[in-house]
């Protein structure tokens, strides 16, 4: 679907202002950054998180009274997929030291570390091993690796500044301190970072960074990391991977400790009871909930299942009142709507422009601020670009990159995006892209500590499902780092816990019965069930004709 009609004509406006913008860029003149007060004001007015009508207070559970998006509240005010009475808890199907729920980056890294610390591991995942948000990361991974100009303290400052100074200090300290070690671990396993000829890592800026510390593998950092650690997991005899087997409920024991989980075979529709001495939830994010109707960058299985599991088992929620909208998601062509355009495009020099080809925001603002500015430009100032398919967007002027950094740079440094657009007849080294904010990341999640432990003994967390590391807003490249840092901690601590501390006891789903009772007492009569496992995109007309309950 190449540009036609109106958008095609509007490209010439962008071209007209380009040479002047280029010369400003070359002189190092950037659009002014907002002050902290200006940031606060624009977020308050335009960021979707701040829309009162978009959220409500929870009526049940450990974080009762906490106000979060309806899409989350709907999941938490829902019943279990299974009636606890139907499950025979005396009949354990599989037993292991460590059970990991979720086979993305966090789950796989945790599995490797748990195995290295002597545990037998079952890794249960919803889709294929590696069908996960980790696979999709493009931008890169942050870490202060260049001593001459960077340090973990600067990384710390950038991170909490981006998170509105609300992040949990201990968690951020872990994040930045373990960073260089994680990169070295990846390099050891064979992850091919983009490097200078002497092996020095290439690095870029991201929104909100004071130093260029975003390390990357072309524009497919996530797949390079994911496929490498998955390959390594496949070498380990003591890691047993169960695909298409999502967890639908945690199982506790008589001591109130986590004792494993109930899995559901998506293909045969059987339930499988797994008993484990320690359990790690690594189920990732929530994009497929389409919070406030936004399109999303996330993979098919990002339905916040882990939040439901953990919450029913008694964990608290942290920072779940904020989700991250990535400022630059594709709005045209429609077929690939929602897909991420990495902020590295902006890092490499592409301007963000309105319908008149004018800049209206610095390209390096933190994501929430950048998104709010784009929403303001389109909705309040009326300077959005009509896509021709009934939506609005702004331009991301990618052709600037080839002009600034040399012919062929876009194709070489962004091969993934280049090919996506090429399939639709758009050459992004010649024509700009149309973008709009897209639901990207779950800033918050379940509460945990700097040892990856939760308030339920034997239950650990890592990755996007957790909350606290990023405060109210995550910086680019801090999630891959978070995922790997805390997964490695969780894997090790869960293995040690399984060996030294786990206590056997009668398995129970009493917490689910209790939760159901709480729902009733709160007057919530609903046929909603959660976790939802998979989104439903069936055409509504077809759905009306699907009469079998499922």
């Amino acid at each position: 679907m190449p540009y036609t009609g109106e958008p095609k004509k509007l490209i010439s406006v962008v071209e007209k202002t380009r040479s002047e913008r280029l010369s400003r860029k070359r002189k190092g003149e950037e659009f002014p950054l907002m002050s902290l007060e200006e940031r606060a004001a624009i977020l308050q007015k335009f960021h979707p998180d701040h829309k009162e009508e978009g959220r409500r207070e929870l009526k049940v559970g450990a974080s009762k009274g906490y106000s979060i998006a309806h899409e989350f509240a709907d999941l938490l005010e829902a019943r279990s997929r299974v009636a606890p009475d139907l499950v025979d808890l005396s009949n354990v199907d599989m037993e292991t030291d460590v059970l990991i729920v979720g086979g993305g980056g966090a789950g796989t890294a945790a599995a490797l570390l748990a195995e290295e610390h002597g545990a037998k591991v079952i890794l249960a995942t919803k889709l294929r091993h590696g069908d996960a948000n980790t696979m999709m990361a493009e931008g890169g991974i942050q870490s202060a690796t260049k001593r001459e100009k960077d340090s973990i303290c600067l990384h710390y400052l950038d991170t909490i500044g981006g998170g509105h100074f609300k992040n949990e200090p201990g968690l951020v300290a872990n994040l930045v301190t373990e960073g260089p070690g994680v990169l070295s671990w990846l390099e050891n396993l064979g992850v091919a970072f983009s490097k200078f000829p002497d092996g020095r890592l290439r690095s870029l800026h991201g929104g909100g960074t004071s130093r260029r510390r975003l390390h990357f593998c072309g524009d497919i950092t996530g797949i390079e990391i994911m496929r490498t650690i998955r390959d390594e997991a496949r070498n380990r005899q003591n890691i047993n991977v169960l695909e298409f087997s999502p967890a639908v409920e945690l199982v506790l024991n008589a001591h109130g400790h986590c004792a494993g989980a109930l899995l559901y075979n998506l293909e045969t529709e059987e339930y499988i009871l797994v008993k484990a001495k320690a359990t790690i939830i690594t189920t990732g994010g929530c994009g497929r909930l389409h919070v406030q109707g936004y399109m999303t960058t996330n993979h098919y299985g990002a339905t916040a299942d882990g939040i439901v599991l953990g919450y029913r088992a008694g964990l608290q929620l942290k920072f779940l009142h904020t989700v991250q909208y990535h400022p630059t998601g594709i709005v045209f062509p429609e077929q690939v709507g929602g897909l991420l355009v990495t902020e590295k495009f902006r890092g490499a020099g592409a301007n963000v422009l309105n319908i008149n080809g004018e800049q209206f925001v610095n390209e390096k603002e933190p994501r929430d601020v950048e998104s709010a500015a784009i929403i303001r430009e389109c909705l309040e100032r009326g300077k959005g670009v009509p896509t021709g398919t009934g939506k609005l967007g702004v331009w991301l002027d990618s052709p600037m990159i080839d002009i600034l950094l040399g012919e062929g740079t876009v194709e070489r440094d962004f091969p993934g995006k280049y090919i996506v657009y090429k399939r639709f007849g758009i050459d992004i080294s010649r024509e700009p892209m149309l973008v709009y904010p897209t639901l990207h990341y779950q800033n918050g999640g379940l509460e945990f500590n700097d040892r990856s432990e939760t308030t339920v003994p034997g239950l650990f967390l890592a990755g996007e499902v957790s909350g606290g590391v990023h405060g109210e807003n995550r910086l680019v490249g801090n999630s891959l780092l978070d995922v790997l840092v805390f997964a490695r901690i969780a894997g090790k601590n869960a293995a040690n816990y399984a060996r030294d501390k786990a206590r056997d006891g009668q398995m129970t789903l009493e917490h689910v019965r209790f939760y159901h009772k709480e729902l009733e007492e709160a007057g919530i009569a609903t046929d909603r069930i959660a976790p939802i496992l998979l989104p439903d995109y069936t055409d509504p007309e077809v759905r009306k004709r699907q009469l079998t309950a499922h």
Partner: protein
Amino acid sequence: MKAEDNQETGLKEKTETGKLKLIPIYVMGKRYQVPHALTIMKALEYAGYRFIRGCGCRGGICGACATVYRKPGDYHLYVGLACQTVVEPDMYLTQIPFYPANRAHYDFAQLTVEPEEIFKLYPEVFRCIACNSCTKACPMDIPMMDVISAVKQGAIARAAGLSFSCIQCGLCVSRCMGELPQYHIAQLARRIHGSKLIPRAPHLTAAMTAAKDEKCQKMLGGLMKSDIRQLITSYNSREIEPEMAADDWTPANCDYL
């Protein structure tokens, strides 16, 4: 999410009569009418399929949705990713969500950079008859046959470079006359290349030490205890590395180094 504002199908584009322009496609031989501009994946969902297999990232990067199809009056076999390929009238398609491929087990730390290591683990590389079917089957335009011949010649770096954007969908394996598991072989080549052939980042060891040394941890401890006003002051006075600076740029302000 309400079905009406279905963000995925996002069917805004209607014809003058207010109806969607529908075209016929054949899914595993069965005819369905679907909107003309959708990807195969969204068209299947429109038709009423709810994926368990054959759908992962929905962004062209995970390899879950490999699809093969033919068009009327055309003997070619076409390949594509269901999440990236737009439907065409009368296409005959099937997804290939899984294709068996044997993977060798190895102790990665013990492997050397000798090409013989790969030959031992995957002796079948020499069964390649250079038919180029794998290359033709690749939805990512990877010259897979050249990857395999690079491996045979011991050119591991070349194999790694050529296969860098491999999403391991398995279509190459499905078409191989020599019965090779190309994507596993390429994965091994890439890991050896990434870990053992290209120079290691020389600055990482120093950074690891620095991150944990006493001075640095003390400074970090100070930040962790700072109140929000102090933090805001420090945050606002950060010196920003210029975007276009050379990699050996050094800051004027060395406060936190």
